[in-house]
């Protein structure tokens, strides 16, 4: 008797402990969900410069499928310059973008017009609706963004949480039909299942059959390990009963949908139907079709055994079994099932969210996030991070970097065998980072040269020298003569600094525009020293260089060093007309529930006069027309009006090029990781990569109209006077109104007077 009571007490305590465990986990945060990172969504509008082919590549990346009917979200069809597209819709930071069916009409310039088409549900067949059949003009449509990665927790479970109502038709029916027919009736255990399992087990003398209800399976996944012992089974059964006691059927079902193991992506386990849908079909769960839902249901029993990528035949058979069962249960008609069976598995080749996608860009995103969020939250809170990455730009840049490096290697041989690269591309006005490449093999994670290779910049600091001068309108203009001649100044270590020109020649008196275009070291250094080292360093800081730089003269020719990303920040200010914007790789962060959490807004800060920056930009365009960047126009149309600057360091250890058009600012660095010398200058190395990138990107011409205070004049630099058109010794340059001299050369004035007299007699 006493023994009996004692036993009861023990059982009571034991059940109490189990009950606590059941409720504790179920009530608390059940899963840690990795943050998901998205590329920028493509905005479609009339006037968008994109070819149908480029748009279709974007759709393919998003796993849209070509289908003449275009009857469901995620499909499109193209014929005779018209693309019919049914978007998926997406929940963005600024609201839900609903799925829409639309027609895009293309002309040579890109998207000409967008009109909406009626959805099937808007106008059900048989009903004659008086309206909604007219195509409606649409101004703007956003596609869903490409998932480019995530931040995964230590135990490497990847999932996307879903709610019960997000499951597609037949998923739940199929799941219950195949896993647990009595789910809505039983109290956690199914006697029929247990009996059936018992019979099988007795027959085979081992624990082969589970006979588990969904509740039991959830308990096993949630609280217990995989061992099949009788005591485990007993505990599992008690916990299943307790779970059913405390929670609604739908809550348990929803938990099961999010917990069940459905596959593997490298190190990461794919848990739940939400993530599985992305993993196998690259689509949101609620848009799966019957045959896709059936495949996922089939995987619940054994995701590795039925892995549709490794064992497609086995998976197909399994899927069709599920479809047959649905007919048996009167969920599907025989006709529907047969139609679904004719469909291929439709599994995408590689999961779009593979870790290897764009590692250098993700690295940048992660560093920015780590400033504002705890690592733990990034790995567990299911944050949705919307980045600025433009997959189209990123992929083209990656391809061209790889190709150009290969061709440089075949041209220069052994000495550049280990040539490495760091590339950053941004949108010049906003400072949004569009693409990052951190290695010659862009898919290789590891040392991210775009962010971490701090290398001397060579002539890339020269624009800061010239900008300092050009901001002083009284004393300097592009036509001011400066001295390109040998000089030496003592340095701190008892040595002398005597800069040399690349060609070894001093060029005497040269105009500022020529000195920058041809990148004369002696003229640039002399000008910098005349202006004062402190003032030039001040300009560098104003341009956005935060890294401390050495305060000795060699800094004028790039001593110290910056990463490609830091160089981008510096030139961003020039490309944006003197307004500095912090480079941004993140736009918005949403919580797992879709609540806005943070925005990284556009901010601008004026650091230089638009007039001074205009003059500098003009000189940087001259670099491309007549100077060190000239070779660009052998390959690119001259109308692009590119502004650029080459950079080469001593003994050819670093090859740099920075250039911008209207829509892209791109910085390219090439060099060896061991800092060895190579036979490449900025022009023969980095510029060639830049050209290849731009050729592929087809940028818009740089359009920088002169500010009001700038006037184009004929100017004689030697005499320091204005001149008439085409007088000998005169150059045609933009000048600030304060720099324009009142005096005229004899040639100019004379012409002017004669012209004026002539005009009286007309």
């Amino acid at each position: 008797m006493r023994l009996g009571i004692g036993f009861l007490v023990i059982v009571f305590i034991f059940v109490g402990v189990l009950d606590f465990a059941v409720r504790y986990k179920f009530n608390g945060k059940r899963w840690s969900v990795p943050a998901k990172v998205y590329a920028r969504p493509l905005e479609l509008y009339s006037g968008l410069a994109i070819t149908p082919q480029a748009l279709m590549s974007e759709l393919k990346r998003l796993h849209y499928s070509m289908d003449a009917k275009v009857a469901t979200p995620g499909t499109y069809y193209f014929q005779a310059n018209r693309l019919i597209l049914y978007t998926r819709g997406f929940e963005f930071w600024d609201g839900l973008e609903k799925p829409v069916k639309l027609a895009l009409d293309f002309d040579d310039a890109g998207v000409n017009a967008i009109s909406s088409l009626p959805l099937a549900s808007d106008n059900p067949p048989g009903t004659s609706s008086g309206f909604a059949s007219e195509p409606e003009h649409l101004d703007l449509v956003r596609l869903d963004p490409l998932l480019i990665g995530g931040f995964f927790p230590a135990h490497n479970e990847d999932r996307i949480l879903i709610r019960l109502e997000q499951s597609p038709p037949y998923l739940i029916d199929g799941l219950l039909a195949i896993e647990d027919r009595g789910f809505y009736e039983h109290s956690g255990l199914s006697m029929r299942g247990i009996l059936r399992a018992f019979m099988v087990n007795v027959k085979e003398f081992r624990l082969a059959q589970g006979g588990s209800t969904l509740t039991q399976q959830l308990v096993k996944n949630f609280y217990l390990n995989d061992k099949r012992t009788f005591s485990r089974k007993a505990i599992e059964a008690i916990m299943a009963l307790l779970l059913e006691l405390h929670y609604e059927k739908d809550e348990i079902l929803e938990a099961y949908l999010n917990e069940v193991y459905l596959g593997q992506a490298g190190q990461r386990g794919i848990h739940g139907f939400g993530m599985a849908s992305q993993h196998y079909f690259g689509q949101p769960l609620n848009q799966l079709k019957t045959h896709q839902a059936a495949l996922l249901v089939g995987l619940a029993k054994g995701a590795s055994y039925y892995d549709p990528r490794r064992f497609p035949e086995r998976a197909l058979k399994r899927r069709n079994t599920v479809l047959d069962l649905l007919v048996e249960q009167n969920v599907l008609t025989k006709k529907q099932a047969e139609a679904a069976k004719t469909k291929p598995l439709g599994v995408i080749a590689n999961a779009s969210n593979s870790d290897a996608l764009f590692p250098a860009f993700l690295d940048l995103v992660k560093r920015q996030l780590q400033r504002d969020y705890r690592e733990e939250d990034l790995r567990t809170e299911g944050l949705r991070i919307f980045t600025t990455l433009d997959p189209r730009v990123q992929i083209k840049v990656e391809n061209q970097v790889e190709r150009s490096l290969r061709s440089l290697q075949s041209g220069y041989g052994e000495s550049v065998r280990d040539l490495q690269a760091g590339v950053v591309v941004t949108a010049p006005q906003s400072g949004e980072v569009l693409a990052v490449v951190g290695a010659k093999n862009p898919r290789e994670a590891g040392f991210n040269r775009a962010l971490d290779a701090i290398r001397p910049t060579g002539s890339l600091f020269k624009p800061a020298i010239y900008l300092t001068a050009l901001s002083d309108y009284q004393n300097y203009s592009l036509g001011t003569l400066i001295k390109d001649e040998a000089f030496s100044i003592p340095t701190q270590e008892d040595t002398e600094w005597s800069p040399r020109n690349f060609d070894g020649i001093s060029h005497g008196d040269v105009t500022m525009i020529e000195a920058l275009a041809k990148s004369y070291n002696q003229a640039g250094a002399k000008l910098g020293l005349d202006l004062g080292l402190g003032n030039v360093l001040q300009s560098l800081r104003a341009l956005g260089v935060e890294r401390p730089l050495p305060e000795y003269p060699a800094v004028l020719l790039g001593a110290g060093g910056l990463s490609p990303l830091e160089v981008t920040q510096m030139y961003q200010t020039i490309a944006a007309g003197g307004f500095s914007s912090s480079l941004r790789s993140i736009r918005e962060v949403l919580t797992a529930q879709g609540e806005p959490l943070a925005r990284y807004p556009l901010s601008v800060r004026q650091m230089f006069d638009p007039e001074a920056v205009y003059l500098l930009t003009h000189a940087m365009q001259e670099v491309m027309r007549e100077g060190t960047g000239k070779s660009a126009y052998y390959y690119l149309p001259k109308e692009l009006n590119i502004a650029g600057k080459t950079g080469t360091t001593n003994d050819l250890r670093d090859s740099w090029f920075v250039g911008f058009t209207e829509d892209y600012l791109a910085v390219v660095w090439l060099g060896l990781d061991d800092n060895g010398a190579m036979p490449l200058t900025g022009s023969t190395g980095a510029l060639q990569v830049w050209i290849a990138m731009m050729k592929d990107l087809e940028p818009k011409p740089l359009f920088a109209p002169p500010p009001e205070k700038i006037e184009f004049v004929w100017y004689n630099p030697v005499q320091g006077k204005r001149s008439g058109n085409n007088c000998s010794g005169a150059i045609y340059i933009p000048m600030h109104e304060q720099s324009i001299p009142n005096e005229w050369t004899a040639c100019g004035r004379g012409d002017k007077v004669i012209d004026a007299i002539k005009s009286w007699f007309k």
Partner: protein
Amino acid sequence: MNFFLKILLFLGFASLAACVAMPEDAGRSSPAPEFLPGGNASGNDNSYQPSRKAASKPPQSKFNDEVNPAVINLISSARDLKNRGEYPACAAKLERALRIDPESVSAYTLLAEVRLLQEQNLAAEQLARKAMAILAQRKRSSNKELQMEHLRLIVAEARSERH
């Protein structure tokens, strides 16, 4: 002054009035903070001839006003959001507009007005300056002068509120 100009003036001042209406907005609970991470950014003498081809013709001015319907659409919904006091959402719309047309003076101007309402005066002033710099590159027109004047007022207000 013609009729068209009067309407423009009225619109200019009406939108200005919207930003001056601080007391009304002050009582409203401010929307979720939009936190700003990181606190924010050959030969000798004159034988050289700069190339003339591209330089000899200063480029023509662009359109003076936004013509892209997508941009107009975004700016108009941003205006609604601004009137409802939903500033971060409004800013998000304007940034979308600026991605499509990075030189939209209207988008920069409205963004400056929103920052002023959010009492981010430094940001407001800088955005207005950016709009002015873009505007300064455009052809002379009465509309341009009007927009310029409006932007100067934003700058003045941003500066006065800061102290």
